[in-house]
């Protein structure tokens, strides 16, 4: 009988002791939400058929103890130490016909922003990329003993119909007059974009500087069974853009020089990436970012571009810049080279 009582007591005190211990530990409010850093490789490479040099950007994920959006990482924490081997292969009929080895370079500065600009290591190779070919990218990371792999089919040739590099053909961009860019559909292309660059001279305190204003147009998707693809550049919007981008300053004189057109086409992978990183509309707020890199994340795609540069603006466009409702305070010279709107009467 005494033995039974003793066992009961032991169980009772043991239970109490467990509850007490559980109570003590449950009072801890510290929870470790960080896992160990995975050092996931991040790769970006867009092969450009219009360029003789190709570039690969390789970085990695990082982990810091502070709020990630408030504290930029240390430059060393976003690059892999040790051996890195980057190579590109061109394949034809299931055989490698060309191989390019990339070398690290720090010649190209990184844009300023949240991430550190020091140690901007890119991998560069002198490689002429051929249209409509299969390319495979391999990256060996020594510190992780890992090989990353991605492949893409390069785009066909981009043929631009309008504009053509003809200096006597002036460009008119003013309210009520738009310019239409046209190009032939490119095989394997997933997205297109037109960029307009407006070049002008700005004279301030007797010093003249050539300046440019880039005006990227919205993305265009490929159509089906059409002869030409086109993008309308709005003349009214052009004047608005100048009004928004340039500051009216007393004593500053500006003179329109010319406009450049850059027509770009990108692969389907680039289109998927753009769509996956675009702001969400609707219920799905968190979209997974597209990747086509095995053993890592990132993008390997191709692009083609055509540049038509140095096209002159029509006299009506120059006069609209000088005296138009949106831009008249910006100090642009008219088509006669001054700002006297009575030229017509005194000549």
């Amino acid at each position, binding site marked *: 009988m005494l033995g039974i009582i003793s066992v009961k007591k032991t169980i009772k005190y043991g239970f109490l002791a467990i509850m007490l211990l559980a109570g003590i530990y449950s009072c801890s409010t510290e929870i470790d939400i960080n896992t160990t850093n995975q050092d996931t490789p991040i790769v970006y490479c867009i092969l450009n058929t219009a360029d003789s040099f190709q570039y690969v950007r390789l970085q990695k994920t990082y982990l810091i103890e502070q709020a990630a959006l408030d504290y930029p990482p240390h430059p060393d924490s976003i690059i892999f130490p040790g051996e890195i081997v980057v190579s590109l292969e061109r394949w034809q009929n299931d055989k490698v016909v060309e191989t390019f080895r990339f070398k690290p370079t720090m010649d190209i500065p990184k844009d300023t922003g949240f991430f550190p600009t020091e140690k901007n290591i890119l991998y560069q190779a002198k490689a002429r990329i051929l249209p409509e070919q299969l390319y495979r990218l391999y990256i060996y990371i020594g510190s992780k003993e890992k090989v990353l792999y991605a492949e893409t089919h390069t785009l066909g040739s981009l043929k631009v*119909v*309008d504009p*053509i590099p*003809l200096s*006597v*053909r*002036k*460009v*008119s961009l003013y309210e*009520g*007059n*738009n*310019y*239409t860019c*046209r190009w032939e559909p490119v095989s394997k292309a997933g997205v297109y974009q037109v960029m307009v660059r407006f070049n002008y001279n700005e004279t301030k305190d007797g010093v003249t500087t050539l300046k440019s204003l880039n005006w990227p147009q919205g993305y265009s998707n490929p159509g089906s069974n059409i002869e*030409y693809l086109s993008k309308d550049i709005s003349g009214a919007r052009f004047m608005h853009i100048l009004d928004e981008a340039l500051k009216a300053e007393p004593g500053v004189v500006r003179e329109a020089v010319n406009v450049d057109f850059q027509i770009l086409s990108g692969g389907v992978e680039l289109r998927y990436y753009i769509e996956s990183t675009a702001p969400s509309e609707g219920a799905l707020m968190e979209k997974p970012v597209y990747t086509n890199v095995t053993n890592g994340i990132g993008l390997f795609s191709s692009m083609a571009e055509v540049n038509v540069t140095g096209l002159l603006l*029509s*006299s*009506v*466009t120059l006069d609209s810049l000088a005296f138009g409702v949106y831009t008249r305070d910006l100090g642009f010279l008219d*088509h006669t080279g001054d700002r006297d709107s009575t030229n*017509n009467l005194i*000549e």
Partner: protein
Amino acid sequence: MKIRSLLFTMIAGLFLMTACDPDPVDPNGNGNGENETPKIVGTLEVEFRVPGSFLPPSRVLRADLSIAKNAEDLYRGHYLQVANVYNSKLIYQFDLAPGSYYYQAGIVCIAEGDSCSAAGFPGGKFGMKWAVGTATVKENGTTRVIPQFTR
């Protein structure tokens, strides 16, 4: 009885006051367009044909199409409108107030060697030919012109 008649008078007064309130006037004149006088315009339609020659069609291109109010403005380059011309577009339209206008159309030769001179383009490559004419634009009407180039 007095209260009822007072109420009735107040309601009637409010009704009259509201009824007398004219439409609010936007001091900046930014109306919705209903009361604006529509601009009277007509259309000048230019059928910009590139004349055929022994040169391939891809070597003679449209270069310029401008409209001016009179011959002097055209000569001085004081245009009212300048069209964006394209290889693939034949018809160009201009919305203009009724009246008479001058137009000029230019074509350019981009063939190599002495081909352009042989085809009558002065100065050889990048030589241009011009066609100048007049047109009368009528209210709400379309006037069509076809520039004529010399051979």
